[in-house]
């Protein structure tokens, strides 16, 4: 195959892959600290994208330069989704801590439906797809058959920066130390004087902020958002996290990239590209049968 087309597939796949990775990192963080699966994650992502759009519409009359508008949108939607994530944890997840994990799974699944239907019903014309503003430069560099757009590169860059930052927070700060301690052994961490509740809330805020970022960058890339966008992204993000090994941040990143690669291969391989999701999920099932705890399972995390 021509090297230019190969590069094009790579860029397409990478943009999707980093988006999945951001979602998967959230799943893995929540599972790490509390051993829970928060199924409203995809809908928080969608809410983040809609928050971004709402802020854009509010800022529109001021006619600020796109870069400043973009920064405001990103920061505001990350912060507000971080807040939503922490609230969700405080009022829905933590009270059910000693209940069977199935209850947490169900309650977050239902909360996700509430978010989704609320946006559909209460956002003006919420059931229609919404055009998302084009805030990134659209200049393109042509390298043979590879059409490299600045916006694609920037979106990959945003995600990489966010992942590096998350890595830094978890591994190099005191908060990160607390998160890791809670993930390893909750009771010992409490004995060592770590504020358990605060640590868990921070983790949920962090994961939900990452979801907001991937929501906004999905909007920026496709120039369109809709109330159902979180459904598939949530399922794919969860599969990617499980594939990489729930509880492992690296695993989530690798899982997200693998999933995007499988989809791209599926689309190239089959004459009916609609089969690409069937193909990707089927391969994930086979990989899970081979490595039930995930490809890069965190050795210290407890399996259930």
């Amino acid at each position, binding site marked *: 195959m021509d090297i230019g087309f190969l590069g094009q597939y790579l860029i397409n796949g990478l943009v*999707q892959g980093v988006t999945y990775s951001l979602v998967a990192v959230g799943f893995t963080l929540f599972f790490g600290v509390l051993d829970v699966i928060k199924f409203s994650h995809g809908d928080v992502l969608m809410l983040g994208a809609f928050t971004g759009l709402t802020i854009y519409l509010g800022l529109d009359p001021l006619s600020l330069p796109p870069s400043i508008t973009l920064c405001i949108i990103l920061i505001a939607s990350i912060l507000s989704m971080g807040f939503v994530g922490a609230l969700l944890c405080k009022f829905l997840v933590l009270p059910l801590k000693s209940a069977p994990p199935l209850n947490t799974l169900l309650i977050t699944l239902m909360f996700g439906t509430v978010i989704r239907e609320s946006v559909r019903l209460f956002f003006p014309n919420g059931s229609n797809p919404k055009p998302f503003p084009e805030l990134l430069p659209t200049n393109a560099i042509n390298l043979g058959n590879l*059409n490299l757009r600045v916006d694609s590169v920037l979106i990959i860059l945003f995600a990489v920066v966010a992942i590096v930052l998350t890595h830094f927070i978890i591994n190099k700060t005191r908060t990160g130390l607390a998160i890791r301690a809670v993930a390893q052994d909750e009771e010992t961490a409490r004995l060592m004087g770590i504020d358990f509740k605060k640590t868990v809330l921070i983790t949920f805020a962090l994961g939900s902020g990452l979801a907001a970022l991937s929501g906004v960058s999905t909007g920026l890339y496709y120039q369109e958002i809709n109330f159902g966008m979180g459904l598939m992204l949530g399922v794919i993000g969860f599969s990617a996290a499980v594939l990489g090994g729930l509880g492992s941040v690296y695993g989530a990143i690798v899982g997200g990239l693998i999933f995007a690669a499988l989809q791209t291969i599926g*689309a190239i391989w089959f004459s009916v590209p609609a089969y690409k999701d069937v193909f990707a999920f089927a391969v994930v099932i086979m990989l899970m049968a081979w490595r039930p705890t995930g490809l890069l399972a965190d050795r210290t995390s407890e399996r259930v």
Partner: protein
Amino acid sequence: MSIMKRSFAAFVGLLSLLTIAACSDTSNTVKIAFIGPLTGGTSAGGLGGRNSAELAIRMRNAQASTTHQYELVALDDECKPNVGVQVATKAAADNTVIGGVTHYCSAVAMGTVDIYHKFGLPVVVWGAVLPDITYGNDYPEIHRVNGTMINQNEVAASFMVSKGFSTWAVIHDTTDYGKGHNTYFSKSLIENGGSILGTFGVNADQQDFTAELTKIKALNPDVIYFGGLVPTGVRIRAQMSKLGMTQVFQGTSGIVSDAFIEGTGDLAEGVVAFREGAPTEKLPGGKMFLENYQAANFNEPPEAYGAFSFAATNLIIDAIEKVGPDRLAVMQELNNTRDHDSIVGAVTFDEHGQNTIALITKYVIQDGAWTVWEDSDYASGQRVLD
């Protein structure tokens, strides 16, 4: 005590009067169901159709010669077969509903025709173009005022080949609608001497098409043919530009909507598509329809199929006026429709209930508007499709 009794008697009397009034009111009101997508990505077409049906009913109710009062029951099928089946059952199971003006989306219509047949509800399809809706069954309840995608794709293929294009890549959604377009277009194109380099079936709600489009970029066709509806079409056209693709984008009647231009912005220029019938203002009764539509102050434009919805509603009302509000009689009356005057031209149903008009109009988007090909700068040579 006596006051209590008297007031009770008065109350009962009032109640029975109200009941009689209510009954006599309903006996004169005939319900007609409208079903189309009122929410979701294709809702623009559905809302235009709903308003047009509503307009037909209001205009008829205002006429002194009308024997019955009509009421429109508008139901939302969301362009989803599963939802469509639910609302179709709701309409068909309601005995007070005498006829239906049904469906913009072919996939939904395919799922609901059995229900109308089972409940004996006569319906007139106002927008869905898949041939099988009328030709795939022998149900006497099903009629259609608009043409089918067979004629549309014959014209599309011969026209594009005559413009000097020779190679195509076909993208279609995997619903009945998209698959039908793929079948009929591919058949006509090969008959006309064009060749298809690749065919790609995609999910209608898919978000990312970059992998499929990169594959097409490698095939390097002259034209990308898309068989599907607005939301998917908008995504594909937008993502083509992400990959630096400059091929001509050729759509079907499913994208002839202002929503497509809104969604694609500047990228809409030079997109071509084909549709049955003629632009509303060029239809026999188009001017009258548009004037009345304007006067009724609806929030949404009538869109491409509004006139067909208006004509379908009037057909049903005409039948009810003639034979009375009885489903069976209305169905037989509809089946006998020959050269019936309507705003979309004379309507004649064949033995499958299909209107036999075959007028197709060619469109190109010029300066942010769907323009009839013959009136465009592209036809006069001032602009070229590249």
